């Protein structure tokens, strides 16, 4: 059962590497970003294949089970990503609003001079 789950986990990580590569080819990720995504998914594959590597950490941080450490770590990672995505979206919204409004007001500024 665990081997099946590990297989699914590795397949998922490899699929995500493939999607990251696609985004890189389309120019949506730069060299540094693709490097970090490779690093993250490579680390995920290592943890999936050799989960015992994390056991020392789980003991250090007083987690009862290794699984708890992985879940909390993943949750923190998702929260960081979500907050970054939120800030980036807000920034884009502001830029878009500023541009669209300045385009609409372009003629007004000329007329009112």
């Amino acid at each position, binding site marked *: 059962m665990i081997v099946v789950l590990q297989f699914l986990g590795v397949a998922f990580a490899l699929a995500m590497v493939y999607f990251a590569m696609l985004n890189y080819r389309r120019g949506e990720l730069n060299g540094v970003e693709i490097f970090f995504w490779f690093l993250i998914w490579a680390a995920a594959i290592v943890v999936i294949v050799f989960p015992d590597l994390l056991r020392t950490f789980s003991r250090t941080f007083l987690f009862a089970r290794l699984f708890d450490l992985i879940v909390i770590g993943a949750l923190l990672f998702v929260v960081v990503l979500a907050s970054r995505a939120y800030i980036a979206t807000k920034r884009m919204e502001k830029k878009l609003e500023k541009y*669209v*409004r300045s*385009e609409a*007001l372009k003629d007004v500024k000329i007329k*009112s001079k």
Partner: protein
Amino acid sequence: MDIFIVIPTFNEERHIKNVLKDVVKRKLPIIVVNDGSTDATAEILSPFTIHHSPFTILTHRVNLGKGAAMKTGAEAAFAFGADGVIFMDSDGQHKVSDLPKFVEALKKYDVVLGSRTLSHGVPLVRFLGNKFASMLIASLFGIYVSDLVCGYRAITKDAYEKVAWESSGYAVETEMVIKTAKYGLKYCEVPVETVYLDNVKGVTILDAFNILLDVFRWRLTK
């Protein structure tokens, strides 16, 4: 006092013509902000610039939201030399016959807020939601406005420079009220009649929820 009427509009091909036909009779300068409409609104607006003056159309190439459209309209009006602006919705729910109340009130107050009553055609659910919002704002910001989200309102140039909202969507009315309290501006409410012609447009439950989140954010950050 030079007063401009600002009408933000988005996909209002069904109502905008009738609204403008009534408004132009008042002989006040009008600015319509077409907020990225994808229907025939732009085509309906065009003839008004030829037959009525001063009539200005400003166009947002993409839909930004009511707050952003109001801001664009207000900034244009003040660039043209307005001392105050009156905002009206473009869906025909506001009556032009109420305009003189705003014009008069603007001479004495910085901000004039339209207030609908239940007898003036507001659906009961909206009325109760609005009352709850009014009480929430009163408890959090110390300002009670009986109709928090009525789009029929007016503001002077000096007040606008202080209030200048950041909301691009439907939270604009609430933010305006909160900033009115924050800067100690003189405000009043005037009763207005309302006709609901379209049930699916306007503030939805989701919008209300987002406004609620904004309200708590403003309480924490301002």
